[in-house]
């Protein structure tokens, strides 16, 4: 094992006044979100902007479902990065593997909350899913495979990948020593254990990659297989979901890595190579996603059926046009930044972080545009176009979830090294 640690690395176990203030703000927003959920449970879904499709001119899936899709999409980054580190031996990504895995776990937990918010009777919904779900249904793939299998697999990856550092941190006396001993579970960094770690992480990566593709694709199939819903029924939904998941996940990872670099890691541990790699990955995913968007758009405009065109017109020039064009701008501007960055080969961390934020805002808007317009416009029965406007309860719930996610990540970073401890990266 490497030299004994004198104190816990990366600010673990130390909290400043500023950090506590941030946590208090995040906790307050999260509590406001839970208050919104309490209102929803006690007064019913009437406190939301959700209404029946058709006769009531509304949408039954709104912000909650859009954010389920968004959070599951963000989870893409962690396991992909972890799998790339192991299968493709991408050494540049090693320093961010753990924060990526933590991001996956946290975003999947947030997705579970978003599902609960969407259900009028959450307990009944969850129990019946495990009782009656049809494995042939894309809902099964999404809500059971993603939430149970994918979340469990991510937890296993995070746990096993952290044992070595837990063993090192357990050498440092303090309040967290027992916690590290439990996590390390007797890890002694012997040659056999190192070999076993290497083999297990390789096979885990192999097992997780198909799960990842199935999980994100079935989420696309939830929409893409609905033949009676113009705007959703498309063979491109599943691959588009995987691509946008990659865009939002890598974008979020860039933001988190930049925060970690600024607060605890410094430029030595998180060098420009990491950000160059992430920037290039984001650029390629953005290019591919924009290509898919254009193909989808051209198909629906050029040869789309009447109802299909109605949805497309609502997006391009109708009720949803401001959101649509804002989402497009928030994809195109970062792409321009990333292409310039690629040719200049400069660091430009500020523009990279701005790109990460922009693509995530765009992903939220795009998820909203995938979920809502096909319910309010283009219905096959002769109903007038409807509308959906989220209430403050839904805004509070989603802001609360984002704050809760940030809180979880910040607390995790104070309990466990957010990056591999020096001398533990073999």
């Amino acid at each position: 094992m490497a030299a004994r640690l004198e104190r816990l690395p990366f600010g673990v176990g130390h909290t400043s006044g500023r950090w506590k203030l941030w946590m208090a703000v995040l906790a307050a927003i999260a509590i406001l979100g839970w208050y919104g959920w309490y209102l929803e449970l006690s007064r019913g879904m009437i406190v939301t902007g959700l209404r029946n499709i058709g006769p009531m001119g509304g949408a039954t899936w709104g912000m909650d479902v859009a954010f389920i899709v968004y959070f599951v999409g963000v989870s893409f980054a962690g396991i992909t990065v972890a799998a790339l580190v192991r299968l493709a031996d991408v050494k540049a990504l090693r320093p961010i593997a753990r924060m990526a895995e933590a991001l996956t776990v946290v975003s999947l937990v947030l997705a579970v909350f978003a599902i609960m918010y969407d259900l009028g009777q959450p307990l009944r919904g969850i129990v019946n899913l495990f009782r009656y779900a049809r494995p042939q249904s894309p809902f099964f793939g999404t809500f059971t495979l993603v939430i149970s299998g994918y979340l469990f697999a991510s937890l296993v990856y995070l746990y096993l990948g952290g044992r070595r550092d837990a063993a090192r941190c357990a050498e440092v006396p303090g309040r967290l020593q027992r916690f590290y001993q439990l996590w390390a579970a007797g890890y002694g960094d012997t040659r056999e254990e190192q070999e076993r770690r290497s083999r297990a992480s390789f096979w885990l990566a192999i097992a997780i990659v198909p799960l990842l593709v199935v999980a994100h694709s079935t989420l696309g199939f939830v929409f893409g297989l609905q033949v009676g819903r113009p705007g959703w029924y498309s063979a491109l939904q599943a691959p588009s979901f995987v691509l946008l998941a990659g865009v939002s996940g890598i974008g979020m990872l860039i933001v988190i890595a930049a925060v970690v670099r600024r607060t605890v890691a410094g430029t030595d541990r998180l060098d420009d190579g990491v950000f160059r790699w992430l920037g290039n990955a984001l650029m390629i995913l953005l290019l591919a996603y924009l290509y898919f968007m254009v193909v989808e758009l051209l198909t629906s405009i050029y040869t789309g059926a009447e109802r299909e065109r109605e949805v497309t017109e609502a997006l391009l020039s109708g009720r949803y046009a401001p959101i649509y064009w804002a989402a497009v701008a928030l994809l195109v501007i970062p792409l321009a930044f990333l292409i310039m960055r690629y040719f200049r080969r400069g660091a430009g961390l500020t523009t990279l972080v701005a790109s990460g934020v922009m693509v995530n805002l765009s992903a939220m808007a795009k998820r909203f545009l995938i979920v809502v317009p096909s319910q309010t416009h283009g219905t096959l029965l002769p109903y007038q176009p409807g509308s959906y406007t989220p209430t403050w309860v839904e805004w509070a719930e989603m802001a609360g979830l984002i704050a809760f996610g940030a809180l979880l990540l910040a607390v995790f970073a104070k309990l466990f090294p957010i990056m591999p401890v020096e001398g533990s990266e073999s």
Partner: protein
Amino acid sequence: MRRRIVVLLMVVAGFGLQAVTYLFLATPIGKPTDDSFSNPRVPFAPALFILGVVLVFLAAVVYEVLPENGRRESR
């Protein structure tokens, strides 16, 4: 050796449970002809499928954490 056997059993049981659940315990696959195509043949069959997925990944934890017959490992 003991660890390898346990891990192998867990992986086989996990994949087996997934396959059996999907093919024989869950809602029948195929064109629906009556009410039996609406519900799983065994209640909580989807939960069993998830248990299979969990078993497979739990095997990785057993593989890394379970000691090999109490033998000391060399550094």
